[in-house]
């Protein structure tokens, strides 16, 4: 009998501080599995962002730099320009990447910086207690959209994946979810592919992961999980929007 599911080696033993049922834990595991898969733990550098995933360094057995809120992509660019043969990834929430960090991620993508960006879109500011995120759905209540998000005041839930796919720079732009075992498997594949792109020097890879925040959605973990399929995926369709297979150099 063989162990077919176990804790990835790139993870530490530390218990997650995440709330029960929070998808951050699943995404953490998938990233660690990708690192294991390519056996690059010793040359991987994680760039943590500010959000519920701020303690990345507690859970990953790799070197980690904690970036200021929104600036993970810029920090990763700085690191990667020096350590070009290392693997550099960022892990960012939707507040971090799609609000304050908009310019940084767009320009890293546009430059085709050879880094991997894992974008956890839970449609809310988790860490700060449930404020509206740029990706909060229309009509959704949050502590700063108490009457529901309204497009004329707050704008539309922003589709970062679609927007980045409109740029020439990035090599892989994809959206996945982790709400069912099947989707977890697909997400695993895409995240692995994102790291592979980087290892092959193909440039910027970006994976958006639709994710729950049971606590700030005010739902049980199961209800939150179900909401992904019922509300999030219809607005944020899954799939790979862009994939370059050759390295283009001027």
């Amino acid at each position, binding site marked *: 009998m063989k162990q077919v599911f176990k804790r990835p080696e790139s993870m530490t033993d530390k*218990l997650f*501080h995440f*709330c029960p049922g929070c998808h951050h834990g699943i995404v953490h595991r998938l990233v660690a599995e990708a690192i294991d898969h390519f056996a690059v733990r010793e040359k991987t550098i994680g760039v943590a962002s500010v959000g*519920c995933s*701020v303690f990345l360094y507690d859970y990953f057995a790799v070197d980690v730099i904690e970036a200021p809120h929104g600036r993970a992509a810029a920090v990763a660019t700085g690191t990667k320009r020096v350590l070009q043969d290392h693997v550099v990834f960022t892990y960012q929430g939707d507040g971090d990447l799609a609000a304050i960090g908009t310019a940084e991620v767009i320009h890293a993508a546009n430059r085709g910086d050879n880094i991997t960006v894992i974008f956890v879109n839970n449609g809310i500011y988790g860490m700060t*207690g449930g404020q509206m995120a740029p990706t909060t759905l229309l009509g959704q209540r949050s502590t700063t959209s108490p009457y529901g998000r309204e497009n004329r005041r707050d704008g539309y839930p922003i589709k970062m994946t679609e927007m980045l796919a409109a740029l020439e720079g990035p090599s892989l732009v994809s959206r996945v979810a982790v709400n069912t075992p099947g989707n977890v498997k697909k997400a695993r594949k895409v995240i692995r592919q994102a790291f592979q792109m980087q290892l092959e020097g193909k440039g910027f890879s970006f994976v958006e992961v639709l994710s729950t925040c049971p*606590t700030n959605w005010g739902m049980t973990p199961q209800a939150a999980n179900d909401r992904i399929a019922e509300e999030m995926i219809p607005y944020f369709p899954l799939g790979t929007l862009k994939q370059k297979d050759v390295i283009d150099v001027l």
Partner: protein
Amino acid sequence: MYNDVIMAGFGGQGIMLIGNLLAYAAIREDKNVTYLPSYGVEMRGGTANCSVVIDERPIGSPVVGRPLSLIIMNRPSLLKFEPRMKSGGIIILNKTLVDPEVSERNDIDLVAIDLNEVSEKAAGSPRLANMVALGAYVQKSGVVAVESVTAALKDALHAKYHKMIPANKKAIEAGAAAAS
């Protein structure tokens, strides 16, 4: 008279609610009061605590360095706060989760109650353990009248929970009884 208390436990044990409730009870008695919660990152997975200071005179520090009393709902909170207590203070301890033997002070007044059991008996559910603890503390300290606390339930609870007031009242009173 000046009085202060720190209440602490897991997030989800209703610590903040009883802190607020006590404050409202003090306001009903026309006392000055400050309520200071811990908050933020600690909420996820960690412990939650708050400090309440009650006085007839204006309140200086809302920060309680050496508490006169504690309401302790879990083990980590006992370990964290007990050593700081003033001599002669009161601890209301949640015996359901914490073995009273863990307490290391013998210069204090330790009131260990099986809060879940008392709550279950009084209100038909273990979920009002926090109210039981508050009832016990108020009874034991005399900081405000138990009636002020039960009367304040409608100030502290959101209107949509007002139907739960009777059960809460029972739990508070059962706590007071358990401590007397």
